[in-house]
């Protein structure tokens, strides 16, 4: 079975409401234990092996990166009590009461339940990238707010952790939850939902300006905008929107630029290699952690139902006519990618020589109603704005549906909002 078919089979199982999925666990076990399997699946997952992202991995994943030492350092979550506590002495040790992720390696039971628990823990605690610059945004409540860092009902701050490193010093680090989680109206953290306020560029700008940087030379940092991060070392200003992860299993490709053919193992490899490159290739995550994270993220889009044509027949008709050739009302993506020029949105992310493939991937619209920013650059904030012809002057591209009259458009929006949404409670 091809990787693609395996991925689809998995989606089908998940859609059928299977709580345990032995296929996924078996693939995960193989990913963890079989180097040839990993390398073959990695190579097969790249759409454009010649771009920098893929080339680096093809060259280094096998020998060089598999020789890296697994990293599972002592960490603890940053909490409200830490706000202002590191201003005078940022490198002060404080992780004493914290600990590494547990259990990993030998002790981990290879069950769906145990892996999801580990994945959930890692999502909030595994240090993705050292970020003392972001740590400075914990200087005060005001600074947190300016950087768009949340405080949740457990008093945790922005998904930041303090991590003890090899030389014994301690640093701030970001986790998945810094970018891919936000609080709901009761302060509970929602994993997988983009933090649309997190603004790494602005945090860096404010900091550099306060240190005497030249506002004009630094102005490019403000072009990222909240909810966007420049993730590519490609000499271009091309911040990408932080993707909402609920429904990741339904996209045919990973990354806005469509770099990777998506399936569970490809996702685990994508996360493992992210965690290698973001520490400058000095360590690798334990593979159990990478797979647990992948499985945890893969399961995030569960639940919900296809678009509700019974309640919104007119909207369903419009959707069928203008959208369904690319985005299925059932969350599938019949045309999984589109040439950059044919989409017509800003090309900078798609053309990245690091991640680019010549295409933008067509996102699945499963649970689209929960997304706070749309398109690869997060430039559109709602379905209303996406379909409004008045925006085309400022933000051209993806003009499908913008020609509809107001009543048709309203119906289309009502229908699109039901795709993947929970129903009948």
């Amino acid at each position: 079975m091809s990787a693609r078919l395996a991925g689809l089979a998995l989606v089908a199982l998940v859609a059928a409401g299977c709580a345990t999925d032995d296929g996924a666990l078996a693939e995960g076990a193989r990913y963890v234990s079989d180097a040839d399997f990993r390398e073959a699946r990695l190579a097969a997952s790249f759409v454009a092996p010649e771009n920098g992202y893929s080339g680096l991995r093809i060259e280094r994943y096998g020998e060089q990166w598999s020789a890296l030492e697994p990293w599972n350092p002592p960490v603890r979550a940053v909490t409200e009590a830490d706000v202002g506590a590191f201003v005078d002495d940022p490198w002060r040790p404080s992780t004493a009461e914290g600990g590494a992720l547990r259990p990993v390696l030998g002790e981990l039971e290879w069950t769906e339940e145990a892996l999801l628990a580990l994945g959930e823990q890692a999502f909030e605690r595994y240090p993705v990238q050292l970020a003392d610059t972001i740590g400075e945004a914990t200087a005060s409540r005001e600074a947190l707010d300016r950087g768009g860092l949340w405080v949740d009902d457990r008093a945790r701050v922005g998904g930041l952790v303090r991590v003890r490193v090899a030389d014994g010093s301690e640093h701030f680090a970001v986790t998945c939850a810094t970018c891919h989680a936000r609080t709901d109206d009761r302060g509970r953290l929602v994993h997988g939902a983009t933090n649309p306020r997190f603004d790494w560029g602005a945090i860096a700008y404010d900091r550099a300006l306060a240190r005497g940087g030249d506002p004009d030379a630094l102005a490019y940092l403000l072009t990222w905008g909240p909810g966007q991060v420049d993730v590519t070392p490609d000499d271009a200003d091309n911040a990408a929107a932080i993707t909402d992860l609920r429904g990741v299993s339904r996209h045919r490709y990973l990354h806005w630029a469509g770099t990777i053919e998506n399936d569970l193992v490809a996702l685990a490899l994508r996360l493992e290699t992210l965690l290698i490159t973001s520490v400058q290739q000095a360590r690798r995550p334990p593979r159990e952690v990478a797979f647990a994270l992948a499985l945890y993220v893969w399961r995030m889009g569960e639940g919900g139902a296809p678009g509700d044509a019974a309640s919104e027949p007119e909207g369903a008709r419009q959707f069928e006519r203008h959208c369904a050739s690319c985005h299925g009302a059932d969350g599938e993506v019949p045309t999984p990618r589109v040439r950059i020029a044919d989409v017509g949105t800003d090309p900078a992310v798609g053309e990245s020589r690091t991640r680019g493939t010549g295409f933008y991937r067509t996102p699945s619209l499963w649970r689209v109603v929960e997304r706070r920013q749309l398109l690869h650059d997060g430039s559109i904030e709602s379905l209303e704005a996406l379909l409004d012809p008045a925006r085309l002057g400022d933000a051209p591209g993806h003009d499908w549906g913008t020609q509809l009259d107001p009543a048709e458009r309203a119906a289309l929006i009502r229908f699109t909002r039901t795709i993947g949404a929970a129903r009948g409670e």
Partner: protein
Amino acid sequence: MRVRSAWVIVAMAGAIGCQSHTRSEDAGPPGLVDAGPPGLVDAGPPGLVDAGPFCVLPVPERHRPTADVCDMTRPPGSPSPGLEGCTSDAECTDGANGRCSASRFGNECSYDECFSDGECGGGLCLCRGARGGVGSYGNNLCVGGNCRVDSDCGSGGFCAPSLGDCGDYGGIVGYYCRTCEDECLNDSDCVDPMQGNGYCAYNPVSARWACSYSFCAG
């Protein structure tokens, strides 16, 4: 992401030709050297390193032979008329050398955090203007690391300024001893066709200097 010259310290003319330096034959692949098992790291708090390096280190372009004492004077601030917040330096009275300057949120006060290393706990005082490429009207501030001057790194050692994580725009974040295991000497060692133009920085994860490429996780 684009590497900005604003923070990149201008390379010295006649750069040191010694590219092989101490990326020593016996150091093995990165990550395999001398670190304990994961999760069991038990080193004490960062302190000054007192044993000298057990190799002959080449001279990096940037290092700190002696401690600086910062200039007590600071140029006047530059508030933008019409913005909220302070209107003149005289209103900035919560610290030393208060200056009122424009930020994203209006005009705000900033202060000198220090004038000499002794005021910075375990760290050192980075004087305005001593930061290569950075404007000269900012504030003096304390930064961390594991050394203050070359002699803290043993005889023949170098205490060098390092840029931080996720790109070069954060400016210098700390000073660290160069080590025998370093994978690069200067920024010019860090050009990679697949990863773009990087810079040589201290990587706390591996406790050595290595090439860093300008991108943030995601």
